[in-house]
């Protein structure tokens, strides 16, 4: 697994993709956080990072599929999948190696935004007047959200040779899982079970983490979605044998 992980990270860093993705992410979130008046913290008047954690998932929805779309599609198209699959390694090692490489890149792109926390902390009146626990919980939630989106991206990359298809499917699945269930739960028809439907989506669990509360139920939810997606990926790789 570790060999695949190293190779994937090298591929990211050797190509421009990683740098473009990280700079687009940081520029985008920087503009939204500090410049655009509508969402700017400076105009908001409260020393908190709420807007960052609300906006981030929507940026991730596009950026993470862009990172993960090539993972399997490219190898399938170039035929290098055959090279990997005839090596003395298990299929799941290939999947995990690629998945963690993607996750590494996601974590790497979130890292510089920790600076925002310090900035806001010093902008506060009095200095340090920020809900640190809330921010920590939110960051943890954001990382898990990134992990879920990466697993979705890995999965959708595994069943097509076409990177664009992989990207579009991943964006849709991310959007649906994040926001879709929440929206459906507001339909009058489901008023009786709206809570249950809401809990199927990521938004519910993400919001609960933003409060700085790390609940085992939310963790179980995130880890089940991730492992489910990776198991589906494994299933699709194995389907060549049917």
């Amino acid at each position, binding site marked *: 697994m570790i060999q695949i992980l190293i190779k994937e990270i090298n591929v990211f860093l050797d190509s421009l993709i990683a740098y473009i993705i990280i700079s687009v992410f940081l520029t985008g979130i920087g503009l939204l956080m500090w410049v655009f008046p509508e969402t700017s913290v400076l105009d908001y008047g409260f020393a908190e990072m709420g807007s960052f954690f609300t906006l981030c998932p929507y940026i991730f929805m596009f950026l993470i599929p862009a990172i993960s779309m090539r993972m399997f599609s490219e190898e399938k198209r170039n035929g290098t999948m055959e090279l990997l699959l*005839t090596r003395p*390694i298990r299929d799941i090692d290939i999947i995990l190696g690629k998945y963690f490489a993607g996750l590494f890149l996601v974590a790497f792109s979130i890292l510089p935004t920790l600076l925002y926390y310090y900035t806001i902390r010093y902008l506060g009146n009095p200095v340090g007047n920020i809900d640190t626990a809330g921010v920590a919980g939110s960051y943890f939630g954001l990382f898990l959200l990134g992990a879920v989106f990466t697993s979705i991206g890995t999965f959708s990359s595994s069943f097509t040779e076409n990177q664009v298809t992989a990207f579009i499917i991943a964006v849709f699945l991310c959007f649906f899982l994040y926001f879709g269930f929440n929206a459906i739960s507001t339909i009058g028809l489901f008023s009786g079970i709206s809570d249950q439907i809401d809990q199927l989506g990521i938004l519910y669990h993400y919001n609960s983490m933003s409060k700085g509360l790390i609940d085992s139920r939310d963790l179980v939810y995130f880890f089940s979605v991730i492992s489910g997606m990776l198991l589906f990926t494994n299933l699709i790789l194995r389907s*060549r044998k049917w």
Partner: protein
Amino acid sequence: MSIEVKNLTKVFNTQVAVDNISFRAQKGEIIGFLGPNGAGKSTTMKIITGYIPPTEGTVKVCGFDVVHSPIQSRQNIGYLPEHNPLYTDMYVHEYLRFVGSLHISNRRFIRERVLEMIELCGLKKEQNKLIRALSKGFRQRVGLAQALLHDPEVLILDEPTTGLDPNQIIEIRGLIRNISKHKIVIFSTHIMQEVQALCSRVLIINNGRLVADDVPDNLKNIQKESIIISVEFKEKIDPELIKSIEGVLSVKQKDQFILVEADMDVDVRPAIFKFAGEKGFTLVGMNQEANSMEDVFRKLTQN
């Protein structure tokens, strides 16, 4: 060390790609897979390497079943797939190191092996180039280098010489011959001369079935009842005259040559010589066409 293929069958949906093939191979053998396009050569190779599983039958590489203990069997196989897929964005030595890391855990040993392979495959000048920048011949060498890197007992090469120029073909063949002494090499090809030049054993596959399994020299001498002798006279003579010689089946004029088809069991050449002397013709040339692998191939694979 051996390969054991037993009653191997592969069915894709309804199409039978490989139909009950069995063979065994021992150390030191170079086996040539011959067959028309779509005969099932690549499929057989993909099954041996564990890329796809067989529908029926078993394959054992060095005693390890490719389905039940894939990790161990793959550790013993070096594989060069058809079309030689490579990571074109990687540097040659980077790619070889990556492949090495999948087989070998000792990093220093990987580095040593990569250097050895670069030397062996003649990639010294190209080792710091991107694979994308390499010509077809050098890419093929990279493919061969990655297959040899972990010093496997078994080498599976799917059309290793396609798209190479004649010099490169001879070099690659030399390479294969050199490394084959302590290994089993299975390679597929369309080129008959290659089989004659390289193989210690030929397997001809047609429509998924094994139609021949023998050493190349034996194969050449089977399957023919008649033989063609081309004769050239200084004078212009009527071909019909030669027909009277015993053992001659048919006679054809082709340019200045007369092609004489004769019975396989009778050597008619002395009779032709005598015939020329008796009739007062000047015999300028006589050439018995050798039975080539092409003929055997055509005979065995034409339906």
